[in-house]
Each structure stands twice: as C-alpha cells, then as structure tokens.
C-alpha cells in the first residue's frame, strides 16, 4: 500500500479585501460628516426649536457668538461669565472690529440662548450689545421638523 507523503499545507489566509473596503467606507463616511466648524456649538445650551429655523444661506460678516445659559450666564470663549462682565468683552470686540476696519453696525451678534433662559435677560444682553453699537442680531434656534404650533 502506498502512502502519500503529507505536504505542509499553507496557512489559510482570510480574504481581507471586503473588510478593508468596509473600513475605508466607514472612515470616509465619518470623515465627511465630521464638522470642525461647529465648535461654537455648546452642549450646555438647549436651543429653542422653530420650524422656520433654516441654516443661513450666506455667512455672517464678523459674527460674534454669545451663548446664554438658563442660569443667566454667558459662555464666552468657552467660559461661563456673569452678564455684568460682558460689557468689557463687548467693548473689546468693538475695538477689535474697528481696528480691522469692520463697521460695528455690520457685525452680527449670533445669540444662542437656552430655551429656558429668561426673556428679560436675553433682552438685557441685546441691549448691552446695542449700547456697544451692534445692530444686527441673529436669534438662533434649532430646526423643528414636525409641526407643533
């Protein structure tokens, strides 16, 4: 009886191509959706919702983003500060705009106020901006898809 000598078999290599395809697809997906420009969005603010809130078609000229929390503080430069201390920052912003040759009346104050913030406080912030020469305001809200009115 003849026995066949067993040859050392090659280690079975799995086909990696579909996995790599999928992984690259996932990377491309997350890369496209990643938006570094939204760094101004602060999770401490729960924006009010409105069905008319649509993203702006054009970028604002010299936008100044003020985020008002429900406990009457303004997040400015990542730090929550009392509203009374905001006047100094607004004066600095105005000076900075003037040095750059931008008319302060053309700059837009983007107000991201919490849905539970007091309206009176929002108005005080607006008034403070007005006292520093700002005229254009963008009241930010998140888009509401279902009709709730």
């Amino acid at each position, binding site marked *: 009886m003849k026995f066949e000598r067993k040859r050392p078999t090659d280690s079975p290599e799995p086909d990696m191509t579909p996995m790599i395809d999928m992984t690259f697809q996932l990377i491309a997906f997350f890369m496209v959706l990643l938006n570094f420009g939204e760094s101004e969005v602060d999770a401490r603010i729960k924006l*009010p919702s*409105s069905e*008319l809130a649509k993203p*702006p078609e054009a970028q604002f000229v010299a936008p100044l983003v003020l985020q008002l929390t429900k406990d009457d503080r303004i997040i400015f430069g990542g730090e929550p500060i009392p509203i009374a201390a905001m006047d100094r920052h607004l004066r600095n912003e105005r000076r900075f705009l003037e040095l750059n040759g931008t008319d302060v009346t053309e700059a837009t104050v983007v107000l991201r106020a919490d*849905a539970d913030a007091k*309206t009176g406080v929002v108005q005080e912030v607006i008034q403070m901006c007005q006292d520093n020469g700002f005229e254009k305001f*963008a009241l930010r809200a998140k888009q509401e898809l279902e009709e709730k009115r």
Partner: protein
Amino acid sequence: MKLRHTSTTVPNKVDMQMTPMIDIVFLLLIFFLFSFKIVAVEGDFNIRMPAAGAGAAALEPQLPIKVRLIADAEGNLSGIQMADRPVASFAALHEQVMSIVGNDAGPNAAAANTEAELNCDYNLKYQYVINAITAISGYVTPDGHIVKLIQKIKFAPPKKPA
C-alpha cells in the same frame, strides 16, 4: 557548462504586510467614530435692532402689531394678547397675523411695512418668544418652502420685576 535551472514561470508571490495598515485604519476609524456627534440643524431669525434713537426715522412702521406675552411665576406662558385682546394660542396668533399681512398667495403689500413689537414678561421662558416670532414671521408651505411675513420685529424694553 551546466546551467542551474531557475524557475521563471511562477514568480514568488510577495506578501504585503497588512497588519500595520489595518492598525492605522482602525485607529482612524475609532478617532472619527468618537469625534462624530449628531448636531441638530440650526437656523437664525435675523433681526435688525438699532439702539433707541439711532435710525428710528428710517424704520417708521405703518402698521404696528403689538404682541404681549404673559408669564406665570414659573416662567411658563399664561396668556397671549394681540393689540390688547387675548389670543388663545400661537396658531391663533398666526391666523390673526395672516389676516393682516397675508393672503392665499403669501404676504400682501402691507407685510413689508409692518412691524411687530413683542412685549414679554421678564421671567418668560425664551422658547415662547421664539414661538411667537415663528407665528409672526412666516410659515412653511406643505412643500417645505418658507413664506416670510413680518420681518421687522422689535422688543419692548425689559421690565425687571421689583
């Protein structure tokens, strides 16, 4: 001379080292996965509000609409008034605004000259102000288009409770 036989027909397969590439690819995947966050679409209500006295003559309204929003002690909405008359809801407010500045086709000729003034209680939650601005400033058609009604909106001076 004896030539050694060399196999030229089947070249040796060069195995590419996949491990470092897969390592990096997974690292990238994890990075993007963790930096990914779902952000709701945000939009703005653009309002031009010069300080009292500045440019007031240029913005002379012809049909002022005065809306009063009354809050309870908790800051929730307890009443809406338009021109000192009570309004049941924001939908009813929208209907009344439509009867003044709108028609079936959209805003009428008066819409461009109409200004709305919001007079809100100090402690009213801001969400209700946005609801009021939504009711006043436009509506969304069934096919998803936004029709703008009143664009000149201003606030009455805030009155801090004593």
